[in-house]
């Protein structure tokens, strides 16, 4: 069973890579856009830290780490998650999801792996550059356990992002005209570029428990700084798994609502 899905995954990945290799010119364009994006994404940070040493306990360099994680996860999101799941919205509107449902494999697996944009990996590189610059400015390196924890959190963040997308896409079964779903999702994800401790009260609860943005970028940045308590790490892993489980349940329910639109 598992091996069959791994093989399927390999096939899907290969077809996406072949497609990407055809458009090698895109690599340059994507790279340029990614760098452009990152610099403009940094602009608010510069404005905020003008004449301020620290905000909500985060110095400029430390906040830079959060932006680095934001950039990196954006690469993951736009390279591996949104391309496939955008297709689902199209499938639902046109009623072509039938063809996917008919295939003898899990529908969620199939729709989540149809398309990858490997060129978006440039964002991951940009994120790395930001990490290196930030630590260089701080004059020290991350600790080894901190790095390991950050790697674990990269996994949980990806899982969380993916689950959030599955939840968003599930909404498409109920509200049909959702061309702006991607835009919606990105505008929410945008809040993840700030250290979560700037949010107080209700917003902080929302961003930790309901839309767990804090777990995605602030936790890994804290882990790199060696400031993340072990309980938080365990809670993040458990939370991500619970969230994935929940999104799976919602997906199964939503797909029950799918009424193939005969064209």
């Amino acid at each position, binding site marked *: 069973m598992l091996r069959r899905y791994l093989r399927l995954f390999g096939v899907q990945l290969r077809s996406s890579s072949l497609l990407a290799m055809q458009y090698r010119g895109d690599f340059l364009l994507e790279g340029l856009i990614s760098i452009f994006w990152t610099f403009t994404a940094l602009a608010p940070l510069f*404005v905020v830290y*003008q004449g301020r040493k620290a*905000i909500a306990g985060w110095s400029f360099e430390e906040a830079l780490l959060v932006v680095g994680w934001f950039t990196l996860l954006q690469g993951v999101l736009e390279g591996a998650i949104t391309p496939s799941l955008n297709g689902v919205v199209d499938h639902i509107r046109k009623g072509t999801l039938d063809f996917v449902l008919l295939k003898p494999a899990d529908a969620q697996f199939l729709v989540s792996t149809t398309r990858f944009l490997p060129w978006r990996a440039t964002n991951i590189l940009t994120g790395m550059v930001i990490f290196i610059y930030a630590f260089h400015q701080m004059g020290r390196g991350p600790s080894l356990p901190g790095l390991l924890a950050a790697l674990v959190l990269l996994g949980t963040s990806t899982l969380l992002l993916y689950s959030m997308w599955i939840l968003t896409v599930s909404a498409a079964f109920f*509200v049909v005209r959702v061309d*702006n*779903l991607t835009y*919606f999702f990105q505008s929410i994800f945008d*809040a993840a570029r700030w250290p979560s401790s*700037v949010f107080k009260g209700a917003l902080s609860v929302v961003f930790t428990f309901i839309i767990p943005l804090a777990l995605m970028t602030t936790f890994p940045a804290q882990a790199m700084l060696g400031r993340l308590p072990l309980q938080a790490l365990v809670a993040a892993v458990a939370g991500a798994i619970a969230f994935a489980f929940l999104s799976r349940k919602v997906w199964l329910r939503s797909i029950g609502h799918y009424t193939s639109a005969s064209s």
Partner: protein
Amino acid sequence: MSLRTAARAFPTLVRIGFSEALAYRAELLIWVLSTTMPFIMMALWTAVARDAPVGRYGQEGFVGYFLATFVVRQLTGAWAAWQINFEVRQGTLAMRLLRPISPIWSYAAENLGAVPMRFLVGVPVAIISVLVVGPDAVPRQWWGWPLLALALLGGWLITFLANVAIGTMALYMESSQKLMDVWLVLFFVFSGYMYPVELLPPVMRSLVDWLPFRYQIGLGAEVMTNAHSLPTALKLLAGQWLWVLGMGALAVGLWRRGLRRFAAYGG
């Protein structure tokens, strides 16, 4: 296709746009939810201003400013770029071209039709802002109100016409989506959507007056929160309307030239 027929048909088109907005309420809700960035920025900036005010803005000032930004964004929104891009690629633009009125008018009517619904979202926020921040959340002087109306109209026109110009680029290249992304990034940085433009570093500060972005959102929000004296406000408004004219010329020019290249694929 004279201007007079367009003017006669326009109210009906706007009514149709309104009915559409009413029919797709859920989509509108998603749009409203996706423009909640001012609230995020409000949380951030009030955290920044907790110890000492930033420029003229204390915590209350930021609350007023960002609530105004939210209201202005609601009332000046346009999405014609996505529409045009989609319709050019799908070939359905041909349907619009068959009508005896320029598609630009019908896009404008559709986008304007959503304004009453957005008003319903914006007004309560403005009222809350008055309750929280006090009288400074809305224009104090009588002249503030007509200027605000003008600033909102100008802001909408720039947004809409820029949307048309970028959407039309789909006629020249495969997809203008990337171009729109670039525009949006610049918009976020320079429009005053994430911070009042006067907080920008001096170099960028002088650049901002020459770019269209701050006239889309920033000017409206500033007029609403009494940031300017009458002469400054009038000067900025003149700048805004110059951009309206410039953007209009660009959009119409691109549209006319681009339409000759349109080849209704499929459809």
